[in-house]
């Protein structure tokens, strides 16, 4: 950026110069107050961008007090220049935060962030006051990560609302929020939240270091940040998690994770994460531990099913029919009798059809919704079977796979399963169960090699960390979760207890 241009002592020059640097845009308002009738003799000017400020704040807390001050002071001798500026700052402007600036660049930045700039004739300093406003979406119920029991609010697009939501849950002075501006043009606010003493300092530093390395024109969504700070790009598996629930973010911070909050999106990033974190739902902690454990196990199994089921069906019906009980085999063979395609082709046909339906369901305007479901359910399901294009068993397999895919609480790991499913189907079609096994071994090797901010992705299964198993495939009762998950810290840490020892004996 060019060297900063200082403000001049001449009021009209300043306001014209700043306006012109904003392209004399119509929403830049320059209000002059005081002086005699001619504009050029005004003593005070207020500059703000109409679309970014709250009109009432401007009227009630800036303009009104300024006018009163000039009126009251009309009889007395008015201070001028610097003296006037200080008087305004101390006694007149009724805004929460007021600062002094000296350059045009500072003025521009303030304007673009919804501040208003108050300039006084005869001094080369100006005041900025917080007046940010404008329409915001209010705090709503979560849309993508719903629970039956538990807090029913979610993050919004406003980062300061979001920070407030987190602070309101964790009322601890140890909650650290480190802010940054990223994006050459957008100058987006990005905050890194962590709890001092719980989060591993090296992870926090690493997150900050990777954030600093980002140099891009704009950050529109947290996925921009995610792609820049993740460990590996060429993997279908996410190594950061995105969350729209403040309660989940707070709980994760309490377990030692670090949150990256990006302005303009309700999705907050969490790091480091492990593979098994993606199968934990907020609900697990709000319902009784027995049902929570059952559902947790169910999620793991359905995730595997959503990856493997069509491949297994292809492999068994094509290569290993002898594995099936005779009656089932006969029934399957009878269904497939009139089908013109091999199982692999049949499965691909149905899977692709389903993917198309799903994409249509997400993208289409809401009003057309019912039409798509009718087409999907009737035409492509029932009619395809009656027309003899696909076998009923295949429709069942594909539908069950599709539903399994929706059980996973985190959409981004479910997407990974969708992609892997197709390659496994291909392997199954070529090499049967042997092909599936090769695929799975390659997958496991890939997963074992992944890391998220230094934490092995498959922890605590590989490497094996027994103390962290309490919250992986099952959720043990809360009194048994006496320590924080070791794996997120990377090693055994002191001060790891999250509840006193007597808690357990009392609850028995």
């Amino acid at each position: 950026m060019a060297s900063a241009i200082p403000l001049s002592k001449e009021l009209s020059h300043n306001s014209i110069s700043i306006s012109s640097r904003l392209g004399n845009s119509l929403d830049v308002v320059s209000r002059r107050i005081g002086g005699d009738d001619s504009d050029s003799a005004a003593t005070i000017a207020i500059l703000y961008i109409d679309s970014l400020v709250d009109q009432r704040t401007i009227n009630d807390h800036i303009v009104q007090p300024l006018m009163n001050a000039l009126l009251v002071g009309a009889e007395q001798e008015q201070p001028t220049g610097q003296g006037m500026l200080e008087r305004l700052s101390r006694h007149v402007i009724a805004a929460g935060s007021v600062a002094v600036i000296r350059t045009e660049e500072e003025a521009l930045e303030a304007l673009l962030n919804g501040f208003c700039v108050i300039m006084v004739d005869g001094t080369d300093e100006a005041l900025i006051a917080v007046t940010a406003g404008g329409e915001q979406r209010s705090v709503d119920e979560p849309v993508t990560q719903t629970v039956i029991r538990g807090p029913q609010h979610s993050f919004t697009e406003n980062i300061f609302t979001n920070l407030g939501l987190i602070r309101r849950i964790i009322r601890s002075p140890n909650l650290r929020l480190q802010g940054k501006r990223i994006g050459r043009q957008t100058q987006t606010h990005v905050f890194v939240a962590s709890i001092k003493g719980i989060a591993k300092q090296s992870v926090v530093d690493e997150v900050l270091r990777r954030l600093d390395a980002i140099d891009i024109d704009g950050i529109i969504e947290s996925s921009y940040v995610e792609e820049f700070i993740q460990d590996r790009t060429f993997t279908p598996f996410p190594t950061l998690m995105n969350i729209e629930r403040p309660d989940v973010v707070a709980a994760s911070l309490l377990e030692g994770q670090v949150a990256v909050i990006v302005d303009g999106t309700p999705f907050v990033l969490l790091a480091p994460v492990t593979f098994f974190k993606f199968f934990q739902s907020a609900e697990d902690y709000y319902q009784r531990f027995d049902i929570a454990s059952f559902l947790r196990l169910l999620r793991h199994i359905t995730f595997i099913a959503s990856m493997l089921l069509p491949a297994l069906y292809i492999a068994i019906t094509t290569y290993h029919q002898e594995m099936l009980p005779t009656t089932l085999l006969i029934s399957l063979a009878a269904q497939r009798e009139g089908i013109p395609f091999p199982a692999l082709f049949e499965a691909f046909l149905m899977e692709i059809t389903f993917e198309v339906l799903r994409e249509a369901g997400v993208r289409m305007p809401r009003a057309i919704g019912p039409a798509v479901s009718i087409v999907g359910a009737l035409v492509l399901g029932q009619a395809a079977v009656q027309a003899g294009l696909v076998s009923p068993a295949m429709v069942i397999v594909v539908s069950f796979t599709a539903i399994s895919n929706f059980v996973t609480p985190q959409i981004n790991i479910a997407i990974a399963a969708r992609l892997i499913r197709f390659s496994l189907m291909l392997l199954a079609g070529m090499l049967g169960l042997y092909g599936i096994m090769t695929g799975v071994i390659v997958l496991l090797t890939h997963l074992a090699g992944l890391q998220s901010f230094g934490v092995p992705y498959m922890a605590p299964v590989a490497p094996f960390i027994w103390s962290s198993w309490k919250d992986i495939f099952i959720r043990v009762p809360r009194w048994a979760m006496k320590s924080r998950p070791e794996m997120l810290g990377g090693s055994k840490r002191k001060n790891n207890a999250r509840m006193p020892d007597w808690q357990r004996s009392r609850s028995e």
Partner: protein
Amino acid sequence: MGKLSGYQIVVMIIMFELGSTPLFELGIKAKQDSWLAMTLAASIGLLLLWVYLRIQGRFPGMGLADLLRVHFGKFLGTFTGLLFGLYFTYEASRNARDFSELTVMTILQQTPQWVIIFTTALISLYGVYKGPTVFFRVVEMLFPIVILSYGVIVILLFIARLPNYHRLLPMLENGVGPVVSAAIPDIVSFPFGQMVVFLMFWHRLSPGKKLGRIASMGYIIVAVLLIVLNAISMAVLGPEISSISSLPLLEVVQLIRIANILERLDVFVTLLLYIGLYVKMTLFCMAAVIMMKNLFKGSHAAWSAAIILIICGLAFLEPNNTVRLWLGLTVMVKLFTIFQIALPIVVLAVGAMRGLGKKGTEPETAHTADEI
């Protein structure tokens, strides 16, 4: 270089030794006493394990390549290291061939063998390329699956009331002779003597852990498992059928028929054997790659690719399975004993004579850096 935990070493020893061993009814020469032959071989293997552990104990931070150089000097050490590298490579290639023979015999009768060997080589290459840290984690993930599956199979066998202990009687019908001749050198060499490969990996154990206890624990667990599996399999089939069957364990499992649903579990067992073979092959291949890299420098990726290519080539060496089994059981077993028994004992003796590994004696050659 990533360090390995004690648990990872135990798991790897179990998975490696389990490997493809249940595929063969070892010690069938001793008829119904095969499990006694296994026990004898396992005990001799325990002695060998002690030898290996003593060698490692002298310089806990050194891999086999460095150990050989320290004991034999630079030239001879490099030469024996190269021989060990070739031995590991050949063992890996035998596993690759096992893979393809098993596949065409059981689940993919019409697929050409080279397809199987190449796909196997590819997945192995991926594991080797990723390095020991990642591969040990993979095995950690496979371990519960394999152990649970074997457990379920044994339970199902008992539910189906298949094992009959009268088939194990009479014990020592023809005296101790057949048991000893079955155990030595065949079973000692496969699988127990193959523990020598761990000299390539033990030095990665994170410091402060007791290697001796960890390795012996893994070894004893897997030895007991193998003996039990051997005995059960013999109790189901009896010596006559076992001796003529090419894949006895699969025949055992095929006998399980419960509630009209659990039939033909042999396909699952084949997959279990695949996992075992994969682990074994990849570990041997990894050992060969690291050995070559330590001896002659060069990048991990390049050596991985080279060794895997050699393994693929070697896997096609024998024209058919009969020649291969004959070669393995008569010629190679004697060659293998050089690496599993003779050389380690020589190393132990040389070290004792030169007084290596006592406190204060520093290794003469610098450690070879392992970056993976």
